[in-house]
């Protein structure tokens, strides 16, 4: 399926029953150079809107929220050794975690790419 987006600048992409979550290119540009990422461990239950991961730039720490509810099945270990991957490839290899969704219907409440692009345009 195509990506869905939150107002907090996370993206989520569902394949089968597992979804991949990351932050948007807009978010990484706003954060600046990422120096540390903490991703959730497999098995952790998260509810929609919960703090799920941490991303830190030189200046500040930011939370990454769970876009929907479910169970984390994998964190992106590559970010531990190379947090700059978030800056280089936020949309793809800089993903944060994968999760099994509790209710795929929650995705309907998120923005599609066109809506997110319009949302970001309003912020600038």
């Amino acid at each position, binding site marked *: 399926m195509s990506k869905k987006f939150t107002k907090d600048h996370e993206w989520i992409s569902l394949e089968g029953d597992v979804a991949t979550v990351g932050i948007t290119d807009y978010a990484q540009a706003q954060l600046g150079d990422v120096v540390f990422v*903490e991703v959730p461990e497999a098995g952790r239950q998260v509810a929609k809107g919960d703090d799920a991961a941490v991303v830190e730039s*030189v*200046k500040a*720490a930011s939370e990454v929220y769970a876009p929907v509810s479910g169970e984390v099945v994998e964190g992106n270990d590559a970010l531990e050794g190379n947090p700059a991957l978030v800056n280089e490839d936020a949309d793809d290899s800089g993903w944060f975690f994968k999760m099994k969704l509790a209710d795929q219907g929650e995705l309907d409440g998120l923005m599609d790419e066109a809506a997110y692009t319009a949302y970001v345009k309003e912020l600038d």
Partner: protein
Amino acid sequence: MNAPTDILKKTPLHALHVKLGAKMVPFAGYDMPVQYPLGVMKEHVQTRDKAGLFDVSHMGQAKLSAHQGDAAVLFEELVPGGITTLQEGRMRYTQLTNEQGGILDDLMATRFGDTLWLVVNAACKDADFAHIAAKLDGRATLEIQQRALLALQGPLAEAVLAALMPVCRDLVFMQSVWTQFDGADVLISRCGYTGEDGYEISIAEDKAVALAEALLAHDDVEAIGLGARDSLRLEAGLCLYGHDIDADTTSAEADLMWSVPKRRRAAADFPGADVVNAQLADGMAKQRVGIVPEGRAPAREGTEIQSATGAPLGTVTSGGFGPTLGGPLAMGYVPPAYAAAGTEIQLIVRGKAMPARIAAIPFVPQNYKKG
């Protein structure tokens, strides 16, 4: 505290920052560049490797003159530093202190004849100037200067600035001289807030853009924002007022006694001298230290510091990531028994205890041009 952007003050370089693509943020009542398109990391490295240009026009500048005699004599009533012993054109770092020895602000004072040129922090400048004027009322005149202030910092700063103001080569660290740029009087001082060699340049507001553009035209110079200014000063172990030092912290607790000569301690003739001397004689409850976390996670301001066995010790006052150090670093306060470099401690980050060690500061070697 962030004021709405429409009432923020602007420095003379504001339009230039916007033109250069800076991300602007509220800071001390001004709309200031936190970073340019280069980004904090590269701006930091640029300053360590070549030269970076900072707009610090938000800082306060003032000239202090005594009605009779030497302004330095009067100013020593307000600060613990050695001011009367300053040679012509030499500057010192010192602190304005209250009767409890608490630091009201930290500042630079430069001697020209019987007058002093003061540079104070932006967030404190109104209070500082009111404090100085009130304490020296009837005995001195404080002329607040509406001037821009640029900082050119980094190992290539001398070569770059010398093309415009050759006299800069003659200065050593903590020395100042008046010179000319584009027909205007300019005060250049070999000092800064990065741990690197470099200059601060005080110039008339209407000449500031021309000077900034002349410096930025050089291949080795980039504009640097407040983000890198903070990571540079943290690596250099320099205090940020309102964070690492404040009115509840003394010069002794802040490990700034190198800026207080024996003469001042012996005479005990500065505000709070009795408190500071008692702390030096009897010990103090807390002391500023450097901290290096063992993992990769930065510990930010406000992070709790515990002993290796979990006893509460104090709080991180500045913390982040050091691009030159290549990892996280912090400053904070712990009891002197835990202040020795190498002492194992732990930091409570997001509820988890992370191992860390007390570290000597500066975290990276300072690169000043000493005389």
